[in-house]
């Protein structure tokens, strides 16, 4: 694995498009950033939910493991892995308590799908940035 590729992967995941920007693919970087930002933003405005890793904060290492089995619905861990793909936007949503999910709204499900979809797309974007950095792709 090449260092340049790994740096692009990590930066691309943290900030959508940054992995391409550091490799001078500015147009692609801008389009990726706008797409992921717009999808996440629309999802949040629609009342979508950003799923956290834990329902309750862990107090010790053992509880980190135990919490995996104490969720309301174990399937939400899959939603968490999709959401965390948003990188910076996921961190901001946790920091400012965005994405609590407004279940009473008709747009809740679609909003949640927008946020999860943006996260999954950003994983692909980060992997694409790795491929360029590692010289597997132009």
């Amino acid at each position, binding site marked *: 694995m090449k260092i340049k590729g790994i740096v692009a992967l990590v930066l691309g995941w943290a900030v959508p498009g940054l992995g391409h920007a550091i490799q001078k693919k500015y147009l*692609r970087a801008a*389009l*990726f950033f706008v*797409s*992921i930002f*717009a*999808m996440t933003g*629309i999802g949040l*405005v*629609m009342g979508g939910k950003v799923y956290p890793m834990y329902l309750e904060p862990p107090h010790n290492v053992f509880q980190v493991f135990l919490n995996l089995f104490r969720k309301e619905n174990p399937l939400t861990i899959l939603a968490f892995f999709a959401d965390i793909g948003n990188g910076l936007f996921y961190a901001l949503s946790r920091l400012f308590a965005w994405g609590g999910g407004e279940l009473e*709204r*008709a*747009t809740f499900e*679609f909003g949640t*799908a*927008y946020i999860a*979809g*943006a996260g999954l*797309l950003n994983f*692909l*974007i980060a992997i*694409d940035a790795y491929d360029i950095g590692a010289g597997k*792709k*132009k």
Partner: protein
Amino acid sequence: MIFESHLLSMVVYALFVALVMALIRRDDTKARVRYGLLLFAVMTAGALAFGWFMFLFIKK
């Protein structure tokens, strides 16, 4: 309220997904445009077709 229409929400979602996938999966501009439009059309038409298919099983 933003995007109260599920159809509009789906179309905008398909647009973003098609844009990102076209940029990732194709290398030259012409191929990107063609692939992006095809992907967008398939997702939109597929969702509409599946929506009408589900209409067959509606409870009366």
